[in-house]
């Protein structure tokens, strides 16, 4: 934790921006550079920055979820997206898609998206789990 007014003030501004940016990167990942890994890393950076400015305890509080739980949930998402394929009678992790039209635009929703959410969660959980535990020991 670094006790600096400038860092803390900047963090307040950057934190939200980074989170939004992370989700933006995640969703555009299928068509433009981005995706679960990159989005996850940006998301983790947001909380890491917060942890440096305000300490890991505060950062954990706003994260709400335990990093370990995020990892578990992420792996569950990854495996679940594969199980869906099995239940549909295709090999494990074969992409399955639906194309609902919402508000006039056709959306492409598929199991790879669920899988990517899993990747996102694991990357965030991993990074934060490591940073928190290294920062908390004192």
């Amino acid at each position, binding site marked *: 934790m670094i006790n600096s007014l400038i860092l803390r003030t900047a963090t307040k501004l950057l934190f939200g921006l980074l989170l939004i940016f992370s989700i933006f990167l995640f969703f555009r990942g299928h068509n433009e550079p981005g995706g679960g890994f990159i989005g996850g*890393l940006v998301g983790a950076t947001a909380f890491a920055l917060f942890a*440096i400015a305000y300490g890991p305890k505060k950062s954990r509080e706003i994260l709400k979820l335990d990093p*370990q739980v995020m990892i578990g949930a992420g792996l569950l998402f*990854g495996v679940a997206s594969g199980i869906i394929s099995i239940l549909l009678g295709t090999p494990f992790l074969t*992409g399955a898609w639906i194309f609902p039209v919402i508000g006039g635009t056709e959306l492409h929703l598929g199991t790879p998206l669920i899988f990517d959410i899993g990747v996102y969660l694991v990357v965030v*959980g991993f990074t934060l789990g*490591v940073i928190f535990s290294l920062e908390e020991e004192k």
Partner: protein
Amino acid sequence: MLTAILIAFIVALASPFVVKLAKDYSGWVLALLPAGLFAYFMTSYQLVGSGEVILESSSWLPGLDVHLSFLLDGLSLTFALLITGIGTLVLIYAGGYMKGHRYLDRFLMILILFMASMLGVVLSDNLIGLFIFWELTSVTSYLLIGFNNEKEESRSSALQALLITGLGGLALMGGLILMGLSAGTMSITEILNSGEIIREHPFYLGILILVLMGAFTKSAQFPVHFWLPGAMAAPTPVSAYLHSATMVKAGVYLLARLQPAMGGTTEWFYIVTGFGAVTMLVGGWLALAYTDLKRVLAYSTVMALGTITMLIGMGHDYALKAAAVFIVGHSLYKGALFMVAGSIDHEAGTRDVAYLGGLRKLMPITAAAAAIAALSMGGIPPMLGFIGKELVYEAALSATTFASILIIVAVLANIAVVASSAIVAITPFYGEEKKTPKHAHEAPVSMWIGPVILAAMGLIVGVFPSLADRSLFSATTTAISGVETSYYLSLWHGINLPLILSVVTLLSGLAVFKIWNNLRESSAMQGYARAFGDFPKATYEALLNGMLKFARFQIDAFQSGYLHRYMGTIIGVTIFGTAITLLLKANFVWPDFNDHINAYEVIVLALMILSALAAVAAKSALKAITALGLLGFSIALVYIMFSAPDLAITQVLVETLTVILAALVLVKIPKPVIVDRAGAKVRDAFIAISGGVLVTVMLLIILQGDLDLSLSEYFGETSYVLAHGRNIVNVILVDYRAIDTLGEIIVLGVAAFGIISLIKLYMNDKKEEKQS
């Protein structure tokens, strides 16, 4: 069927929560699962009993011909019904037996996991699928046998069972893969239809030996039979389930399943019948050398497994008919008797018959169940066990070769079984009352309902064999023999040789029981137990210790304990080996420098080289980290310049987090003060530079070869059309190669837990130290 197995696995994972809610009624509640599955399998009873075979398949790894495919014929239905039926009773029993146990939730969960895996074994129609479930049963049974993990005996018995069945599993894997390769298919149905290909294949003997190693170790055949009595360290519900009807029968199931493809040859007959007959005789009499009820039952199970193996080895009609009936009969009475032994142990505080007697008045229901089950075990009419034993005798008598030897072995072994059934059902319950560690009284409902139902089933099917003979038993025999079979069973065949032999067996068995106390303590019996019970076990232990000693010798000889020496050896050998291969095989030509190079690209590369060298030369960790950061960001620039935006973004982010992490840790660590000798520096520099040169040369050689772009082009063409994504890199990650990525995030997860526990556990230790 896939759904049935999946549901079982899911319920298993959810069971701890059920236990939390249902508390003392957990056994009853969780028993609904196997009960439901039992009902589900019963719906196929008519259809399968009439000779139909139900197949079901979903692909798993189609590229490797691995499918989650299942088949339900008489054989697998018999086993599925035993697994779910006895499973229901065992779960109820376990709920009572382990009532209030701290880890009841864990216990029931593993028990259900085992059940699900066992269902997988008997239903699989794919060799690899079968193998995976097979190994799952080994792992779960390891956890169950070693459940009382604070006891040294439990841990070592569990490990012993795991090592032996695991070794067999390894052999089995080899055998099954060879079999799949020889037949050109991994589907069991197809293999059974083309048995002559396997039998005439040059690999046949190899396949046979490997598969038999798997089956024999699982089914505790002589000389590795000793793991089964050892496994009695498990809580009794486990023995009642795994060691009567399921786990140990997986081996004979495999033999029965593959009989149409592999059986009928001379090799099969001699090996399988031989091992079965020896196991039968050895196991039967070993049961009489002990006073521990569970041990007596375990050895008589060894005898029964030997009998079934022998029958399948003989392979003629009578033998396979006998096997089908005997499997069911044995499962019913042995499951019941194991539960009885557990109830006695639970209520009286001991299961050593030397300290038991007169319990009949205190535990009347248990005593009655024990008596009925023991009648079946002793092969006395009108029980199913009687029909089974008659068939065994008939099978032995009608063997084409060695009939006289086989019938003598069968009669001798069964005499011992009659005596052991008397030991189990008479000694604890009749005679004068003895003072037991606990004041005995009747077991709760949950603990007598299982033995009562199982014993009653043995009686009902014995009296009314028409319930199963033309349907289940005939269909099972059809599956084992591969030939359409249908027959009736009956209790009375008139006075014939098997009946006369049965009477002889019964009378001699009772005579043996009469003199049992003297017999057990006689030096002949003690010597016999040492030679056939303890000696194989001692041999196994000696082998294991020898292996450990050898491992220790190796460690002392090769492991210096210094990391930098290991590193030097590994890297040096790699460089040397690769360099030699390159010199001998590759034809290196220095490529032309004629492509276009931009000045800024050269600057970035120079920056990379300089920062790497700066990291090497850095005297403090912080300087090194700074240099590393510079290196990482220049690599990101390379990725940007050469059309890899995803990589560049990832690299920048990872580099940032790397620097944060490194800074967090390294500020807390003092400067390293290690000064290397000049000689060491030169040596290291030499290894390092040769490694660098080697990599450059290799890269240059690779760059001059042709690059196969077909895969990348396929991704480019289909990424949007098939996978609905325009960012090809991301589509590869989450779709085309998703299983790779799944592996990767699993690794990340494992690494995170490793790191967190490394740091957290240390901190907790520290805190405790401070407090104390």
